[in-house]
């Protein structure tokens, strides 16, 4: 379905430097039983966020009032494992609109782009700078400028360019999705399918 348009996002960020965060951590399988897309945010990072009795674990960053914002700055190889799009729905439902990492798992990245959560890949050095800046000052703001493909640390002015293909960029800035595109080329697909 068409989703929010994404152009420029300026926000504080939540740091999660742990590496190899798989989608089972983002949303454990036992919470995938819904038949609708909404409400997954409550169980985002469920087993890192709550103990078995359901009490918040104080040492987990989402339970730390110091950090908040629409940007999640994550460790290397974020979103590996299961293809569950529910992981992105959970991030979105919780309030994140952008995930920054030095390395994303493939399917997760696609899933993000397909529902309008922007995955921004930065260099390992820039990721380290972001973590350091946020930890030093949680009110640090980051600006994500999609039309210019720039991520900027507002406290120091340091910035870096990021890649996104023109087609996906256009989709994100306009809130279009792939199905609109595909439905518009229905006859071409039909002609192609005849040979299959």
């Amino acid at each position, binding site marked *: *379905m068409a989703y929010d348009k994404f152009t420029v996002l300026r926000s504080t960020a939540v740091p999660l*430097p*742990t*590496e*190899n965060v*798989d989608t*089972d*951590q983002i949303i*454990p*399988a*036992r919470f*995938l*039983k*819904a*038949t*609708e*897309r909404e409400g997954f945010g409550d169980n985002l990072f469920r*087993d890192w966020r709550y103990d*078995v009795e359901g009490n918040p674990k104080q040492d987990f960053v989402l339970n730390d009032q110091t950090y908040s914002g629409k940007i999640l700055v994550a*460790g*290397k*190889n974020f979103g*590996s*494992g*299961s*293809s*569950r*799009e*529910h992981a*992105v729905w959970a991030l979105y439902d919780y309030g994140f609109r952008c995930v920054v990492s030095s*390395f994303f*798992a*493939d*399917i997760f990245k*696609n*899933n993000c782009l*397909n*529902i309008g959560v922007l995955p921004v890949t930065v260099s390992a050095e820039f990721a380290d700078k972001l973590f350091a800046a946020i930890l030093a000052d949680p009110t640090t703001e980051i600006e994500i400028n999609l039309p210019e493909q720039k991520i900027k640390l507002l406290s120091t002015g340091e910035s870096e360019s990021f890649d996104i*293909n*023109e*087609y*996906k960029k256009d989709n994100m800035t306009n809130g279009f*999705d*792939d*199905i609109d*595109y*595909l*439905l518009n*080329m*229905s006859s*071409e*697909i039909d002609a*192609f*399918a005849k040979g*299959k």
Partner: protein
Amino acid sequence: MEKTTLFDKIWDAHVVKSVPAGPDVFFIDKHFIHEVTSPVAFLNLEKRGIGVKNPSRTVATPDHNVPTVDQDKTIKDKLSRMQVERLRENCVRYNIELHDLGSAHHGIVHVIGPELGITQPGMTIVCGDSHTSTHGAFGAIAFGIGTSEVEMVLATQCIMQSKAKKMRITVDGVMENGVTSKDIILYIIAKISAAGATGYFVEYAGSAIQSLSMEARMTICNMSIEMGARGGLIAPDETTFNYLEGKQYAPKGADWDKAVAYWKTLKSDEGAIFDKEYVFDAADIEPMITYGTNPGMGIKVKGTIPTTEGMEGSNKISYLKSLEYMGFAPGEPVKGKLVDYVFVGSCTNGRIEDIRSVAQFVKGHKKADNITAWIVPGSREVEKMAHEEGLVKILEEAGFELRQPGCSACLAMNDDKIPAGKYAVSTSNRNFEGRQGPGARTMLASPLTVAAVAITGRITDPREVFEN
């Protein structure tokens, strides 16, 4: 003529259109769906007021959250029941073939596709499940997709994907007795890491790969995603054709001959260029087991857990966090550690050959007292064969509990959960934190290693049990 890889040949034949500075519009031959990742896709079709473009190209089965006991009764868990019922409703409404719970061909989606001969060489196959890579064993391009893409396939029979880079992993030579295809893939992932193939599509080649049965090949392709690869595939050969011949959905008569003639063309050209290549020697591979919380954290069963030497920063912190979760220390051996559960099943190792190898191993023995042993066939067909071949009797006499087909404790969506803090040695594909239940500690291994652990109650190299 340009030399191309197997992946190029199949991919290029399915590109409807290349979007300038964008992805390819990619045609999908076969689409598998299950109860967990499809309901929202159907819901969105409804919201858009559109239908399913080509229902005959989609096949459904409920597998992820179904119970593995009392499958003939109403599902107790309300949410699971709703998902399964929704799948049924959607299949009726849109005229999609459903292999329902309790029917002759019910099972894990990646087990029944090959079993029915739906999976064939040269096809493009997707499913809202990352282990769709399993089907690559037939020389197909098969990979997992998200629910938005499930919706795209239902609505248009296409998705929009950028072509992956190409990697070839060659394994030559002969494997030692007691070493299985599961050990090959755990070895490869340990070598190149859980993210080492991200952005690539992998072709597995070499004499050790060619010597494998179709089921063993499926185990390898299945775990491609565990090193980050979008998928993995193996060029089809006589083993592939023999497996498919006579299967329900395989071509018949003149169509069969025509299909085989085409399938024989499906291989990488001599001299085709891959973006990355690895070569391994099968003789170096020993029974493997994981000790951490991603599938790249694997060692020889006889090996020791790596120390933190050379690690720093968040890499070291993440590593120690993982070991803490597992209750292990850097530098210690895993062999001899006590285990609580063994699980034989999943789309990785829930096929008849897996069950045969476990049964053969445990025949005449009893499981250790500290072990709870679950065996979950990948499909009804596998279950039926296991009964007919007398394997169930052997396993039950050894103290294994046979359950009904489904994904079960691989991802513990249903009640098949490993309790917190307990160790499970599992034939499945993921050892993530909590994967087999909150707090569960999973160690991945081959069916043979699992059988050895079941008998001894401890982490054991299956070759040592053979010797006795």
